[in-house]
């Protein structure tokens, strides 16, 4: 844990009325690495994501994002859309949130809103059809096409996202997040509901995002085959607190982790113990 850190979560606490969903949680995510956040259902993982991406305002604690260029941004002080726009943190949702009535291509175009907005002179230049905007739009379509190809949905570019199969929707949501050209990509259970083949493809996609583009990834996942295979570092949560962290191997052998999962769900515990061996 002495690498270059992109994200530092320091003593994060999130309360809802009487419930303490996250308590005093501290962890780091390294640049150009995949950090996984695991734990039984209700452990508070999604809540951590919502704090990082500005959907919830943390009750206490600090979240720092260090950009390549040395800028350090205090995420807990930015609100909603600014985190995606200025801090360049993109996310997907546990319950997929695409724009179902828009085509796959349109979904990816919306993701490039801010860049296109600038190019269209905040609509005025675009309205009169300025050539600068047309070029920008062409580039945006190229980027979207590129991502559709990467997630293997190019032939469905003009179909409505709402018509996609579940696994395709998950991949499209990742592509959409990547079209914002993020520094940190946060994925909330991207393998949920995928079959084994799709999960394997997902692992490959995430590895390629890390290796080829150097995007840092923060990953919540229950599918241990994915987690153990691709994670560089794993943080384990239970009941809102961190109970362990380390490499996949360290975490797998940690009795506290096994106990937490046993307490929650036997099958998951078995999955943790058996995976990756």
């Amino acid at each position, binding site marked *: 844990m002495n690498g270059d850190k992109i994200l530092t979560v320091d003593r994060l606490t999130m309360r809802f009325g009487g419930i303490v969903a996250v308590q005093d949680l501290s962890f780091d995510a390294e640049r150009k690495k995949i950090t996984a956040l695991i734990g039984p259902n209700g452990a508070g993982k999604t809540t951590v994501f919502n704090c990082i991406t500005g959907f919830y305002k943390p009750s206490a604690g600090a979240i720092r994002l260090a950009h390549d260029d040395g800028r350090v941004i205090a995420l807990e002080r930015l609100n909603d859309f600014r985190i995606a726009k200025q801090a360049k943190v993109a996310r997907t949702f546990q319950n997929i949130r695409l*724009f179902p*009535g*828009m*085509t796959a*291509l349109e979904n990816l175009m919306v993701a490039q809103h801010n860049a*296109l907005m600038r190019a269209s002179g905040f609509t005025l230049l675009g*309205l009169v059809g300025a050539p600068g905007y047309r070029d920008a739009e062409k580039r945006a*379509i190229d980027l979207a096409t590129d991502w559709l190809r990467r997630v293997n949905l190019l032939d469905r570019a003009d179909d409505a996202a709402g018509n996609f199969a579940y696994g395709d929707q998950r991949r499209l949501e990742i592509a959409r997040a990547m079209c914002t050209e993020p520094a940190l990509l946060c994925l909330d259970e991207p393998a949920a509901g995928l079959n084994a083949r799709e999960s394997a493809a997902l692992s490959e996609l995430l590895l390629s995002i890390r290796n080829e583009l150097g995007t840092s990834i923060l990953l919540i996942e229950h599918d241990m085959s994915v987690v153990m295979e691709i994670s560089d570092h794993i943080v384990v949560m239970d009941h809102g607190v961190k109970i362990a962290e380390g490499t996949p191997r360290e975490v797998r052998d940690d009795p506290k982790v096994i106990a937490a999962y046993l307490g929650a769900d036997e099958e998951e515990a078995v999955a943790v113990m058996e995976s990756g061996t």
Partner: protein
Amino acid sequence: MTAPSTNTAKPATGILALLKTAFINALVALVLFSLMVGIRTEAGSSGQLTYWTRFGELASLVAIVFGGSIVIELLRQWIGPTGAEKLVPPALQSGMSLIGRYLTPALLIFTLLVPVIFYDQRYILDLAILVLTYVMLGWGLNVVVGLAGLLDLGYVAFYAVGAYSYGLLATNFGWSFWICLPLAGILAAFWGVLLGFPVLRLRGDYLAIVTLAFGEIIRLVIINWQELTGGPNGVSGIPRPTFFGIPLDNSDEGFAARLGIEYSPTHRIVFLFYLILALALLTNWVTIRLRRLPIGRAWEALREDEVACRALGINTTTTKLTAFATGAMFGGFAGAFFATRQGFISPESFTFQESALVLAIVVLGGMGSQLGVALAALAMIGGFELFRGLETYRMLVFGMAMVLIMIWRPRGLIGHRAPTVFLTKAQAISSDLVKEGHG
């Protein structure tokens, strides 16, 4: 939703069941109408209330309900349990998009020729101008409701702001229509932003009441601020439009005199027709362009999923505000046109009924569809006009039509959305997938 509905209108079988249903319906009708129709009250000259009975009317109404129930029940059995949905065969529905491709230019050419074809029929020209005014209003509101998915029950307020802006500027300062027109749009847009600010955080039905309240506030202020607006008496003597400075009257300076042709009042009507047509087409053109720009896509994305928008770094506040402002601006233009066409405006023209009518046009059109809105405006205003003779029954029929249309086509005439960008082929998206927004 798959709520296990306990009575999914099982088609009554057998003549006996049929009669039973009809009988029950007639009984309900009898109770409903007994006092309201069977007894007629009237205030006498001395303020004393009198009443007389109308059992004949009551009996015929109940008989109509009885007969009507039988007919509807029979129809339902023939058509099938799903009823109305099937009245539009799917083949026709998918054909609509194809027709749509040719319908739009055909409709446009026809509209351009209306003043030529109906030159002598003042009534039709007036009606066409009215329809186009509503087409424009529908297109304007479509930006807010259809694209951005924000409910606006007070759209008429912006229409009023536009109308009064022109009316007051022209009568008080003598400014010309062509200067006031953009001003009317800007002022209306300004009010749109002003309304937008408080409502940004509100959702769904809270937004509905606030926009409705806003519409009422504007109307009440117009009624009560007599020094400025003339109150209920309105503003009269609003200058008629000029042909870019040349008056369309029969003076020596007038349009006819300058061209050396014989003066006819129809010149002005025709000019007004092309003026509103141009304004409406401008609205349409701008909307179509905006849809393909990032702002328009953000509007639609907002309608689809606001949370996802925020996660993508879209400033939902400004996005909503621009939608409100754009819609309001078009409403303002339409208002200025209305003022110059009528020459007289009063608060009576800006009631909630107008807002409801424009909203009905947008929803009937199929939210977000430009062609649908135009067709809906034609159908609604044209249909409304058919009942001109039956003054008091007009709103009654209009209300019933609104209910029936919603039951028949809850998603409007044009049931699909056209994508704004495509790689290989633009495919229409079924409206079942398209969200309606929650704001």
